[in-house]
């Protein structure tokens, strides 16, 4: 269908549109008009992605005549989501008039591991080793030596891509259309081009780019991939409820004993290399010295393949001056690094937990190891330059020294918003010495600030962004629009319940100190047992932590509860091992498909809670055992809370509750992914019953949380569940009947604007 919002003609790939999608588009359009940023919360299953895509592309098409086409950068968290978005985009494009369609090019970009088609490089297991295998075949000096000596292996795909790219204009390499990762690989195989570099090259000309958060937020990656994106971009962060954590992780480094040992090994090897070069090819080191003297820390035009992870600090904070004299010579630089590693080793030997600010830390490095702030700042670039000079290709071997230089550059650059925490052992296992030195960033706004400054519009959207007023404070920006939408439903297809007591009326909670009491454990077990006998197909349970889950499963096993549960449904458990969990999930799905029924026990904040959908019969019920607070004794969290209080005036309690509730909402939100679906959500902890807790849940859950479903005991919940399931099993009318319209046709939409404008 096709309709107009103000002056923009919007193309929409479906015959019908939900009213909330329409409203969402109206708000988006206002944001784009204002060239500002916005925060939009809309429940999953309401077609958020298609609304976003169709409005932004329609908008850019209608404005193309004025000032260059708008570009859309769509950031996702996983490859799976990326594929879903590209599929949606393809559907959208197929509904566009053909003259508009021919001008659009969209593609996804992922790491070499997902895009490479070279069998040698692809045989490597991890992402880093694929990268370095690729580098071994395509680095400029490797290719140069291959030109002289044909026995040196190179990558044929890259060579033919390079020939094609240099002979013709890069913009015409790919015809218009939508390219998912699979399509890129297919194109690569067909023409013999390297898909990864093809994608890297093409994103500068594409209208829509879909890639991971890191490519924009992590300064190391962003500086090589997203540097050339112009200002006329609309950036979308989808599923962005955890965006502050992504920002923080991008600027945090942790150094362990193994890192330092590895770094020492790396240094030894580099010394050997330098000695070898000195003996054979001394001019090379001299050239590097001269270049550094001229102030070019980074070589001007690096070959595409030589580009390495960039500087960990943000582009604006990188000094544009010459490398200090005392680290210009390779040997001198290595001895500085050696002293730094030694110093860090010494710090790790501490018996107590130590917390320090960057300023104090730098001062102590200066006095004890004789390395000043400026040298620290240049560590990363200097290392980069040295490695290129030494022609080191197996970069995965050198990750340790890179980490150390990362760390050095970050503490040399930033004085606020960071702290250094040294812990001699993990707090939960005080007997095992495992010293770790962490540089942790507390301020999410540091990493995201350049994005807000650089791009015209940034749209942060997710199914769970409540409470929506906290995000602007955390990320330190002023949204033009921040709004939460609810779902229009023909029937009450979600049934949230707050369970506070077991059948014996004893309160249940995961409050620290009470959580391991037998009565609580037994009541949780009884709840699961009752539910497995009343709910068909799949049930998903979330616990607050791995250790609590392990403990409670052990106790259930001893009490015989687990055996009783197994009579009704099979039990699958998430573990920290990704492969094991994937296998468990696969079998869980099979058990749901064949009618045996299954329970999946997993952990809030785990992999399952974030990225896996339990829609339809894969999840009829989700039970949230306890409130998923962060581990509050963690030093990093304490330091962050203190920083938030001092800088942004956010109270500790507020932040912790906000964080726990968004996790809980995220967990229970897994269960419903479309309007035709239905599911129940049980929040099993008496603390949810407090107003300040459950009022922070997203609006679309709250609107279904009736007063009668608060403060329940297990038997009442079972009764409500039975009734709900029976009601949902009745046939229903999709379009909605009578006054409550949930699907709008084109005529409805055309009639809408006048009424809609009154509403806003």
């Amino acid at each position, binding site marked *: 269908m096709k309709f107009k919002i103000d002056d923009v003609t919007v193309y929409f790939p479906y015959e019908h549109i939900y009213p909330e999608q329409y409203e969402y588009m109206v708000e988006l359009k206002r944001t784009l008009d204002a060239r500002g940023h916005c925060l939009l919360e809309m429940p999953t299953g309401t077609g958020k992605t298609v609304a976003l895509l169709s409005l932004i592309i329609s908008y850019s098409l209608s404005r193309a005549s004025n000032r260059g086409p708008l570009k859309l950068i769509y950031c996702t968290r996983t490859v799976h989501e990326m594929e879903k978005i590209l599929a949606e985009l393809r559907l959208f494009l197929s509904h566009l008039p053909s003259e508009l369609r021919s001008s659009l090019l969209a593609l996804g970009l992922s790491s070499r591991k997902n895009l490479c088609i070279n069998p040698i490089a692809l045989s490597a297991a991890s992402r880093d080793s694929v990268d370095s295998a690729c580098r071994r075949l395509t680095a400029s000096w490797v290719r140069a030596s291959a030109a002289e000596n044909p026995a040196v292996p190179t990558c044929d795909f890259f060579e033919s891509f390079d020939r094609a790219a240099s002979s013709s204009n890069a913009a015409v390499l790919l015809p218009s259309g939508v390219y998912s990762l699979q399509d890129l690989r297919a194109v690569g195989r067909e023409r013999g081009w390297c898909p990864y570099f093809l994608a890297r090259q093409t994103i500068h000309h594409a209208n829509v780019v879909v890639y991971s958060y890191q490519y924009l937020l992590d300064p190391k990656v962003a500086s090589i991939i997203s540097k050339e994106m112009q200002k006329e971009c609309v950036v979308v962060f989808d599923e962005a409820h955890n965006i502050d954590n992504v920002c923080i992780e991008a600027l945090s480094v942790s150094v362990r004993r193994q890192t330092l040992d590895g770094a020492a090994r790396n240094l030894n090897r580099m010394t050997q290399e330098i000695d070898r070069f000195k003996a054979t090819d001394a001019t090379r080191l001299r050239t590097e010295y001269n270049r550094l003297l001229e102030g070019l820390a980074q070589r001007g035009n690096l070959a595409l393949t030589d580009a390495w992870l960039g500087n960990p600090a943000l582009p604006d904070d990188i000094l544009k001056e010459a490398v200090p004299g005392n680290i210009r010579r390779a040997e001198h630089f290595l001895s500085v690094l050696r002293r730094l590693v030694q110093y860090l080793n010494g710090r790790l030997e501490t018996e107590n937990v130590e917390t320090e600010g960057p300023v104090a830390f730098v001062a102590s490095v200066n006095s004890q190891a004789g390395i000043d702030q400026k040298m620290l700042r240049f560590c990363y670039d200097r290392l980069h330059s040295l490695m290129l000079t030494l022609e080191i290709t197996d970069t995965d071997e050198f990750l340790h020294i890179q980490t150390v230089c990362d760390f050095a550059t970050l503490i040399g650059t930033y004085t606020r918003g960071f702290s250094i925490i040294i812990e001699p052992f993990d707090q939960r296992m005080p007997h095992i010495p495992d010293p770790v030195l962490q540089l942790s960033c507390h301020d999410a706004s540091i990493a995201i600030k350049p994005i807000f400054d650089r791009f015209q519009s940034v749209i942060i959207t997710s199914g769970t962004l409540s409470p929506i007023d906290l995000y602007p404070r955390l990320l330190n920006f002023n949204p033009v629009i921040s709004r939460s939408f609810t779902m229009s439903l023909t029937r009450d297809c979600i049934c949230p319940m707050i369970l506070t007591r077991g059948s014996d009326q004893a309160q249940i909670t995961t409050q620290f100190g009470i959580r391991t009491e037998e009565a609580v454990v037994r009541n949780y077990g009884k709840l699961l047992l009752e539910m497995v006998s009343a709910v*068909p197909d799949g049930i998903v349970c979330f616990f607050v932590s791995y250790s609590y889950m392990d403990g409670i499963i052990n106790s259930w096993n001893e009490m015989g509860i687990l055996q009783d549960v197994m009579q009704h*449904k099979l039990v699958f458990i998430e573990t920290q091992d990704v492969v094991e969990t994937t296998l468990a999930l696969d079998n869980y799905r099979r058990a749901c498909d064949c*009618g*045996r029924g299954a329970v999946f026990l997993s952990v809030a904040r785990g992999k399952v809670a974030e990225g896996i959908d339990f829609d339809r019969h894969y999840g009829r019920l989700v039970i949230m055992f306890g409130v998923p607070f962060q581990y509050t004794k963690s030093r990093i969290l304490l330091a962050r809370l203190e920083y938030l209080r001092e800088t942004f005036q956010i109270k500790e309690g507020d932040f912790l509750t906000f964080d726990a509730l968004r996790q809980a909402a995220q967990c229970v939100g897994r269960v419903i992914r479309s309007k035709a679906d239905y599911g129940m959500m049980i929040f099993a902890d008496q603390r949810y019953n407090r107003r300040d807790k459950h009022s922070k849940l997203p609006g679309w859950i709250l609107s279904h949380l009736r007063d009668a479903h608060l403060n329940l005991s297990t038997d009442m919940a079972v009764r409500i569940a*039975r009734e709900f*399931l*029976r009601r949902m099993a009745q046939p229903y009318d999709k379009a909605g009947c009578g006054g409550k319209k949930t699907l709008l046709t084109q005529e409805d939409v055309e009639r809408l604007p006048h009424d809609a404008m009154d509403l806003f």
Partner: protein
Amino acid sequence: MSSSAAVQRRFDLAAMGDAATRRQRRVGNEDDDDDDEEEDDQGSEAWGRAYADERSWEDLQEDESGLLRPIDTKALAYAQYRRRLLQKCAASATSSIQKGLIRYLYLIIDLSRAASVTDYRPSRMVAVAKCAEIFIREFFDQNPLSHMGIVTIKDGVAHQLTEIGGSPESQIRALMGKLECSGDASLQNALELVHGYLSHIPSYGHREVLFLYSALNTCDPGDIMETIQKCKKAKIRCSLIGLSAEFFICKHLCEETGGSYTVALDESHFKELFLEHAPPLPAIAEYATANLIKMGFPQRGAEGVIAICSCHKDVKIGGGYTCPRCKARVCELPSECRICGLTLVSSPHLARSYHHLFPVTPFNEVSSAVPFKVSQKFAQTCYSCQQSFVSHGSKSTPHVSCPKCNQAFCLDCDIYIHESLHNCPGCESRPGSTT
């Protein structure tokens, strides 16, 4: 006291044997059940017993002013009936009129652990059995040419309770005798078993399976998807009535094989859903091919003749029917001759199946809001029972009229005509009418 009354009635039952008294017997049987239950409930206290099965509070409704009023059950029932009737008409208008009149139905009753849950009173199992009894009678009443068998699932195994046959009495007796539940349920085992029995039914017969499923899972020995495909290939139509919640594999089964999947809200809804399976369903076009079927119309044997009955393998005196082809004696109609395999029916059976093909058109509701004076020129009494529509007020009670003959009928007669009579008295009494 009650036990002696029950014994008396059972004795009476044994004495009766004519189809004409069936209706009366049904009433008798229901009483019988109630009596049995009261015996079961003897252990509980008197107040509990009085309300155990009635739940009289559910018949109350709060009106706008907050007063409690009894729900007008009669109006409600009538509204329900109307809805069903119209639905049926809409369905038959769109799909083909061809109906599967000769049905081979297996009723599969889930007697796994889940059947002992007491959300249906007194338990799911008993509620199912009670409705099944009504269903079996209704089924044979509406489909005299059809056959039915019962399979139970218990302890993960399917067990054939009765062989497929044409007699309601033996089915009911077998069902009532064996009501206990344990273990898990297995859809696959039941399907495999039924598939084995139904696959050598002649092609003119419609193979149907109706599950009454209490459990929410199925413990299968192998891949159920293969079994479902096998059933689909064998043209077995599987329908399922769930007692507690929608359940993926059941839905999949019904969608694949072209059956219906419904979930009951409560006892009365369950009964309603169950009885919807009694009238023959429209035949699926690709399954049904028009066929000629050889049938025998046996004569009733003279009273006092002694003959060896082929079904009981025993000497019987009087009654019975004689197969026109091989002259063997059978006790009941409709059935299949044990000796020569001929289908034996009587002509009333055929006639009774006939009405499904030509249903009486639904009557139009006559608005009761029409003022009395205006409506005077319309009929004021029911055409069939002569009851007056004029109540004490100035408005007439709601009634309906036949779109063909324009005669008016009261609501009770409307139900009677559509559910039992299958002929419109108005149209039939018109001179020169042919149907």
